[in-house]
């Protein structure tokens, strides 16, 4: 084959351009290896990467929802803890008040304390979280309990998504807290207060069992909240595991590590320098032929 000048110049120009292109590609590879982006000419790689990104975005969203639900339920749990404390004290007073030997002055003091405890109970069951009433169902802008203990909320339970295929009920409805097998808690307290007011130990004793049932009911409600909080915790661990798996798969999908990319980049620079040196050598030999 004849080798013409055009071929020589075209060849060396092509070599330099190819070497430059390789440097540019190696640089792009380094950048995407650093930021964890796929090759933008590989539809399969891009598709996988995008699916993983979407899954990651869903998990981050569920994480926020999980955190919100955890805080909401923690406030509910804290309120139920207070209700438990209040009912423990009410029971102590009721047990003391059921004693026939109790003097009238003490009974009056207890009556006042009972009144105070009822107010506390009302206040606790009207607890707010971030400006939302926690026990009014989904009518979160409506105070759940009126002064007389009437429930104003609704019975809707809020379901939220906290992990793939995992939802949790994020609220406890006030009516299900205040009402147990023994009846309405406020009614029981009202009856108890009346018994103290009328100095009637027998009637006080009559409310003791109801109080115990109500107290037990509150403990059950607390354990429901506790179980939900535990569920949120395990969903959080599940999300964390998925996150890690996603990051690993994303790294695998990129197909190149930063170390490999750096080596390739160095190699391509070396090749470009060699191509430039070739230009110089070819020019030298052509020029020497003309002299």
């Amino acid at each position, binding site marked *: 084959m004849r080798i013409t000048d055009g*071929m020589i110049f075209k060849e060396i120009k092509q070599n330099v351009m190819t070497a430059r292109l390789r440097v540019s590609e190696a640089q792009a590879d380094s950048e995407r290896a650093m930021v964890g982006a796929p090759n933008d000419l590989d539809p399969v790689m*891009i598709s996988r990467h995008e699916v993983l990104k979407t899954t990651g975005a869903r998990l981050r969203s569920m994480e926020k929802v999980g955190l919100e639900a955890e805080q909401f339920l923690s406030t509910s749990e804290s309120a139920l803890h207070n209700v438990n404390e209040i009912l423990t004290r009410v029971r102590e007073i009721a047990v003391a008040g059921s004693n026939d030997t109790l003097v009238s002055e003490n009974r009056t003091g207890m009556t006042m304390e009972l009144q105070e405890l009822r107010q506390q109970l009302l206040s606790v069951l009207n607890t707010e979280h971030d400006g939302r009433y926690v026990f009014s169902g989904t009518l979160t802008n409506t105070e759940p309990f009126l002064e007389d203990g009437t429930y104003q909320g609704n019975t809707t339970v809020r*379901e939220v998504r906290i992990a793939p295929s995992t939802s949790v009920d994020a609220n406890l409805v006030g009516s299900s807290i205040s009402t147990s097998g023994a009846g309405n808690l406020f009614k029981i307290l009202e009856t108890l207060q009346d018994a103290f007011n009328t100095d009637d130990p027998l009637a006080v004793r009559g409310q003791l069992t109801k109080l115990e049932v109500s107290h037990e009911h509150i403990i059950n409600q607390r354990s429901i909240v506790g179980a939900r909080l535990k569920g949120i915790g395990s969903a959080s661990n599940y999300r964390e595991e998925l996150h890690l798996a996603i990051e690993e798969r994303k790294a695998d999908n990129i197909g190149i590590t930063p170390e490999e990319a750096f080596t390739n980049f160095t190699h391509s620079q070396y090749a470009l320098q060699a191509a430039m040196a070739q230009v110089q050598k070819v020019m030298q030999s052509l020029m020497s032929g003309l002299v």
Partner: protein
Amino acid sequence: MAGMISNLGSAKNTLLAQQTGLMVTGHNIANATTEGFHRQEVLTESLSGNAHGISLDRVRRHTDFFLNRQMMVQGGEVGYANARQEYIAQIDPVLGDLGEGGLNASLDRFFSNWNELSANPENLDLRTELLYASDSIVTVLNRQAYEITKARDDANDDLEFLVAEVNSKLGSVADLNKAIIEHEAHGEDANELKDHRDKLADELASLIGVKVFQQDDGTVRLLIANGMAMVDRDVHFAIALQPQDTDDDGVLDGKYFDVVLENSIPIIINSRVKGEIGGALHFRDTDAVGLMTLVDELAYDLGTEVNAIHETGFGLDDSTGLAFFTGLGTTASGAAKGLALNTDIASDGQKIAASGESGAVGDGANALRLAQLDISDVAHNNSRTLAESSNFLLANFTALKRTTTSTQEGFQQRYDLLSNLQMSNVGVSVEEEMVVLNRYQRAFHSTTKVIKTLDEMIQVVLGMKG
């Protein structure tokens, strides 16, 4: 004496042939870098009979028509692939965006915000965030539709100057064919004219994809696919643009053009052309249309599915029955361009219907239903999720980008290979020309010696007579 005079005549012929050789070699060296130049060579013939020495036969222009034809075919494919690649690169920033501003990321944010709102529907900040995410998705889809349409329009507009360029070159090739016939009829060589004409034919191949056929009279015939002639000797057939009859009513009033071969009845040649014109047509009528269909379908599926659920829910102000997205028609066509966020909702986040129950501001049931759309097969005739549809669009675009890139590279490599073979055959090697120059120089020198010797001999003979 007569023999010596005759020898002097032969030496003169030889000298002239060598002078031509020196001139042609110099011409070759001077054009070593001229694009399209074919090296030339002096062909001599040995004289016989009473005459001796050599005489100039002709100046031969090196060429290889087979290779030339192959190169033109590949040139047409390269032009075709280059044009497609350029238009695809134009929409790449919007359709191939893998970053936070891309379609997938916007869709992820949109559904994530619905999920977050479902847990805290009274939160006005979350509602504002959702409005931003919704606006972002609307913007991305609008922009995708705009960029695809703009690239289609650009391809259509580019046809105007491409067609003008083709017509100008077709005319020039026909004129050059004519000049070649005339030159050769007068016994002159038309090598430069042929170089010029072949270069134009190469450029035509890259513009519209033509095949070349050599004629006996030194002219070329240029044909497009299907064998329709565009140049035949000194006649050329111009092409033109004709608005499409999009609605089949017989009125040519479409926005886009067909490429036609001018005739008493113009013949539409869209499917018969390659080169940049073929590439522009393919992008405008196939690549862009396919992508737009996917973008429109996604916008339509997203809009209708979100609206269907949103309309059943209740806002913080108890508003209900509101479409979340507006600008949708009864079919997917034009959905991406028209999609907009309901202005009532955009100006008042309280109208976002997160609740499934009237008056229940803390209810996020409707927001949760909307959030769960991202895992429901509601797109592409209920066979994919919206995220899968968005991903399908991205993968489709990437595949198109990769295919055009690898096709372009493949054709370019084949073209370069043929071009190398062509260059090997018709290109100039300065070293070789230097050797040839040296050879002619020596021969010229020797011939002048012969003339000098003959002259001396004649002088001697003339001296004897005196």
